[in-house]
């Protein structure tokens, strides 16, 4: 217990922060009342590409890779960047539409 007690306040803080994050996310989700019909608000693959990929790196052009290569890269990025599968699929479809041959 002695070895544990020294970092106990920080563990409490960490768990508290994690819980706060979860709560904030839930509240934010609940308070984001849709002002438009859901169908109009649905993000396209292009939107999701800009939102998720642009966070970490400059834009990679769809023509840089073949459709098959984009499939592999998006599988890699889905894991690395924690993308929900449906969003990853939408981004993949967007990239494959104009992919190189």
């Amino acid at each position, binding site marked *: 217990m002695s070895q544990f007690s020294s970092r106990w306040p920080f563990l409490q803080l*960490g768990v508290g*922060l994690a819980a706060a*994050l979860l709560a904030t996310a839930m509240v934010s989700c609940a308070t984001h009342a849709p002002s438009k019909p859901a169908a109009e608000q649905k993000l396209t693959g292009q*939107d999701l590409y800009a*939102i998720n990929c642009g*966070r970490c790196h*400059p834009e990679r052009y769809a023509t840089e890779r073949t459709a098959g290569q984009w499939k592999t890269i998006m599988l890699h990025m889905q*894991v690395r960047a924690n993308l929900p*599968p449906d969003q990853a699929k939408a981004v993949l479809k967007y990239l494959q539409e104009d992919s190189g041959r």
Partner: protein
Amino acid sequence: MMTRSLILEAAAAVCILAVILPQPAAAEVSDDEFKALKEAVQQLTQQQQELLKQHAEDQKQRAEDRQKIQKLEEQLSAASKAQPSGEAVTGEQFNSLKSAVDKLSQQVAAPPSGPFALQDFMIVGDAETQFAKVQGQHGGFALFDFAPIFLLRASDKVLFEAGFDINLVDNPQDNNTPGASTSLTLSFAQLDYLLNQYATLVSGYMLLPLGTYAERNAGWLNKFPDDPFVRDFILPGAGAGAQVRGAVPLDASGQTLAYAAYVVDGPSSSVSTGAPAGSLDLTGNVGITNNGKFANLHASPSAGGRVGWFLPWKGHDHYDLELGVSGQDGVWNNANNESWAAAVGDAALHLGPYFEAKGEYVNTWAETSDLGHIYPHGWWAQLGYKLAGLDLDLPLINDVELVSRYDEIRDGLGMRTERYSFGYVYYLTNTLHFIGDYEIINGNSQAVIPSANQLIFQLTYGF
């Protein structure tokens, strides 16, 4: 009598034929062969269904393309008719429509030749070359780095990925170790298996989700030529073990909640005589045991995880906030059950496509056999602003991003070092960047981190 004789003769003939003629093929097939054949048929059936599905999707896509062409042709026709009545169609509009029609026609004329292959192998990664001028020393080309990542997609749900770091470090300024040294290190090698919509199983030598830096610091992504001190000295970047991770979309705006939970072998001691301060080896649970052999030093794995919340707003205009907390806890020496733990808070903010702020706070705890508890900790924060946001009509300016970073580390043994970095990123292309920074370093431990200011330039390419 005659009839009975004929029957007997016929029966005899049947018996002879039964002996002479080869046995039916079915009688020679073993159960294993039958099962193999059955599995082959099932596989072929499945492949046929997949092909039919893909074909249906292709047909659907082509039908949509034809509709688009028809619509565009109608627009063209309407535009042509409208021209004499005074609603003139400009040459630019006409060319734009014609270009769109031509593009779609090409797509329909040359559809993909078949479904995408189930397997694919490719190499991505980055490469860097670096020039450094350290205060009081000669300047020179200091680092050449090639960091390929091998990706093998085995199926739609299985990916093997391995990253290597091959570099040459030149030491023109260090009299103690003149010349150059080369190294090849394995950054990570992991197998990813998509379990379902919300969980992916990762196993192998994994980049650890302690904060976000370890997973997002490839040379061409980092806007500085080096890592924050806390990343190089008090946190492990990777570990051998297994992990479950995933993300849950919270609404239609792209908001997500990400999680990761893992077990790894954890850190160990670099000496065979217990766990004195300074011997903590964050790179893995292999070291010198009491009998002088290299082996796993303890049997207790470490456990860790991260929870992250990502909130984008204003659609695709690059306004977003990401917050995360993560940690790891475990034993680093079995002899006296000394433990090591870490807690990391990370944050990143984008206000439009031009402004970025991000950072991490890292706190660690280590029990030692000579000094009791020590608390190495530190933090870093950086800002970036792309000058394209000023909308100046000047050459080169729109491809420049100005960056600054502050980072600080305390090793828990009295050493404290801080660094101010000011620099730029010049985007030659979207993947070729020329970056540079000036770093002002102040500290009280010349042996670990010399307090020598330095100027660094780096050319980096992501591929």
